[in-house]
């Protein structure tokens, strides 16, 4: 058990040189956090304050995402068909893989916390690396997905890219599938697809949705997954730093709280995805695959 700095448990204020430490929320900058900071009276108070702070921070995170979730809910309710069509453009396999990966990373993170608590440095580092790998994998898959989305013309237009931009329904998967059983009239219609027109997605029953509404789905899709990904990236970055610190035995000397706090953050990000996955990918499932059935 390599513990570099022995834990201080002095109740007396440390020398003035002691740094303040207040950013446990942000998961980084954990120097001396196992030392009693001079504005706290004792370690217990410090620990509790910091973890309470973390939870409060998670409040704000939850409220922030909830705004997006509400927009999603509202328009899903209004434009179910558009959402259906939109979700069919996504790659459920990749989505599933990512969900799996993220849950796994939560597991490793939890184990990392455990390792820190039992002061097992090697295990701690191992689990951290594991979490890093999973987290990285998630981001990697997302990157793949997004590039695919781009090539399949699902990225809504930038103003400066002109009215069309990359946005091109004619490229969408479903429409591809649809081509298989296409009748002349739809052929013409499909050829005419413009960013502001409507697109047929169920040729059997002549169901059309406004491309604009599908676009709204994609906007929300990119906003939600984007915001989530930003959190992931931040998490991975922080975790890297913490890994180095862990190597130095920072968290296996009784100062396991930073790991635990980061765990809270990581699990929260995981939870967000747990909701995003079924909402964005699994609308009424695979039934519509291949356009007609």
């Amino acid at each position: 058990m390599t513990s570099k700095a022995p834990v201080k448990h002095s109740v007396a204020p440390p020398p003035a040189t002691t740094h303040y430490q207040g950013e446990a929320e942000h998961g980084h900058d954990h120097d001396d956090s196992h030392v009693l900071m001079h504005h706290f009276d004792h370690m217990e108070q410090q620990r509790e304050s910091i973890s309470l702070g973390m939870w409060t921070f998670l409040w704000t995170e939850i409220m922030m995402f909830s705004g997006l979730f509400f927009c999603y809910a509202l328009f899903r309710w209004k434009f179910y068909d558009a959402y259906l069509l939109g979700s069919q453009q996504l790659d459920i396999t990749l989505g599933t893989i990512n969900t799996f990966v993220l849950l796994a990373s939560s597991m490793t993170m939890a184990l990392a916390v455990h390792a820190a608590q039992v002061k097992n440095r090697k295990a701690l580092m191992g689990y951290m690396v594991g979490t890093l790998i999973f987290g990285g994998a998630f981001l990697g898959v997302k990157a793949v997905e997004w590039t695919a989305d781009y090539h399949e013309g699902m990225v809504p237009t930038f103003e400066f890219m002109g009215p069309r931009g990359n946005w091109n329904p004619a490229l969408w998967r479903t429409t591809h599938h649809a081509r298989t059983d296409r009748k002349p009239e739809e052929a013409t219609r499909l050829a005419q697809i413009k960013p502001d027109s409507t697109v047929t997605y169920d040729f059997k029953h002549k169901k059309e949705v406004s491309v604009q509404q599908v676009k709204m789905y994609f906007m929300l899709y990119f906003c939600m997954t984007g915001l989530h990904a930003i959190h992931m990236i931040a998490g991975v970055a922080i975790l890297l730093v913490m890994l180095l610190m862990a190597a130095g035995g920072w968290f296996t000397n009784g100062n396991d709280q930073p790991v635990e706090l980061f765990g809270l953050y990581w699990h929260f990000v995981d939870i967000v995805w747990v909701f995003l996955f079924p909402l964005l990918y699994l609308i009424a499932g695979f039934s519509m695959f291949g356009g007609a059935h």
Partner: protein
Amino acid sequence: MVSTPAEGFTPTPRPAAAPGDVSVPEVVPADSEEPKNYLNVSYGVKSWLFTLDHKRIAMLYLLTVSLMFVVGGVAAGMVRLNLLQPNGFLISAATYNKAFSAHGIVMVFFFIIPAIPAILGNFFIPMMLGAKDLAFPKINLLSWYLYIIGAVMVLGALACGGVQTGWTFYAPLSSQYTNGPIVVVALGVFIAGFSSILTGLNFIVTTHKMRAPGLTWFRLPLFVWGMYATSLLQILGTPVVAITILLLAVEIIFNAGVFDASTGGDPVLFQHLFWFYSHPAVYIMILPGMAVISEVVTCFSRKPIFGYRFIAFSSMAIAILSFLVWGHHMFTTDQSPLSSIVFSVISFLVAIPSAIKVFNWTATLYKGSIRLTTPMLYSLGFIGLFTIGGLTGLYLSAIAVDIHLQDTYFVVAHFHYVMVGSTVMAYMAGLHYWWPKMVGRMYPEGWGQTAAVLLFIGFTLTFMPQFIAGYAGMPRRYHVYDPQYHVMNVLSTAGATIMALAYLLPFFYLTWSLKYGPKAGPNPWRATGLEWQTPSPPPTLNFERTPVVTIGPYAYSAENDEIEDARYDMERAQADYAAAQAKVAGDREHRAMEEGGASAVSQTIIEEAKRDL
């Protein structure tokens, strides 16, 4: 209220600073050569910009927030001046729109929301809790920097172009039909939002975890209760408006169509999300004001507050109810009648806690020993104006009447009564009340009282006519208006000039007092809060030892005052006595010198005399 065991200083009672009294020479302990406090502990720009001391951060806020107030005020000056004539003689329509938009945005997001929490709360919550600092000093500093970044972005955007959106940024106007650096402003507000979130976070944790031993929830000063409720609102509301504003930016950049009716999007959705924050935000503005009033009113009626628990709980009631009424800003949209009615009834309910507070403050005066110092004047002004402002809120929450009043000057008058007449008054009250503690010097009482009265007059003259113009149907955000409203607007502008003056005075005399104000002892008001149990200005860690609290706040009593007075007179006598002795001693010494060679006797006498001092 506090027994601080083995405390270095038992507070030397000071005469409450009535105009006459303050100038009384301090009774300085003999052994004091300029004690170290948070101001003189270190010098230099760096020591301020990188400080982690909540008191210094509060002072940073004081500076910047005041600046923003002037900016917003000057914008208001433009608005009012232009409305002097019905024909918009002064500035173009676009400029006018930019002026009131800037006014609203700056005043709301950069003046009133940070004003009391980030300045007074930051400075005094830790002290009232007997803590050495806020729980997260670094985050505290971070939030100030976020505020600065946001402010710079917004001011920059306003400087180069400005926006014509009003502070409400309604889509699709803001998203599609007007240009200008809206995205920059939006992001500025977004960032400033996080500043206020972090402040709230800090307060919540501090209040939960850093109370001094014995300081139970019901021994907390009501100021802390109020700030706690405010923090809840900040934490739960602000993120929503943040994401909404972000969505607006996305809407503008990517043309997302979420708020755009022509693509099936919903403009009303924006209003829902916006007001989900912005109504609680109005209580973010008023709750701190109420918190200040609760402190000041008790102190200057020398009497424990009336109905402590009711005031405390009403704050929490407001905090929760305020999340259920936002729809009352949308009565004339095509919001469904059902939800309009639901929102209406809850709006009426949320009025009740405020009513409770008002009545309890009034009852506190009963059998008090009231002195009309500047803070007290502001506070009484608050109670009166808030009553009017709040009750006119009831007009607006009555749907039938609001249909007529929505977006008229009646609304403008309403919210200036509650924001300016109430919150800004309370802010002024708090600033004067705690000024001696913050800078260690008294402000000139006479000037203070003059400004307070002037503000009250100017305010009433400015905004009372707007109620009338409003019910007569004058729509807000009008650059030119129907001549029938001319008279009211002239009155209003006249009032505004008086107000500007009334705000200018404090700028001057408070600055003046920094250097020339008479020294204030630890407790010039002889107040009971923990913050007064330590020197002014306080030392960096606030207290030399963590105080131990044994009883509730506000242990004021007129009888005590008499004893204190007596004690004060005694001390003063002693001081004179000592001075006299010193003089005598001096003479003796002198004579001894003349006699050539100081005798051991005279030496000892001198020593004694010196020690007496």
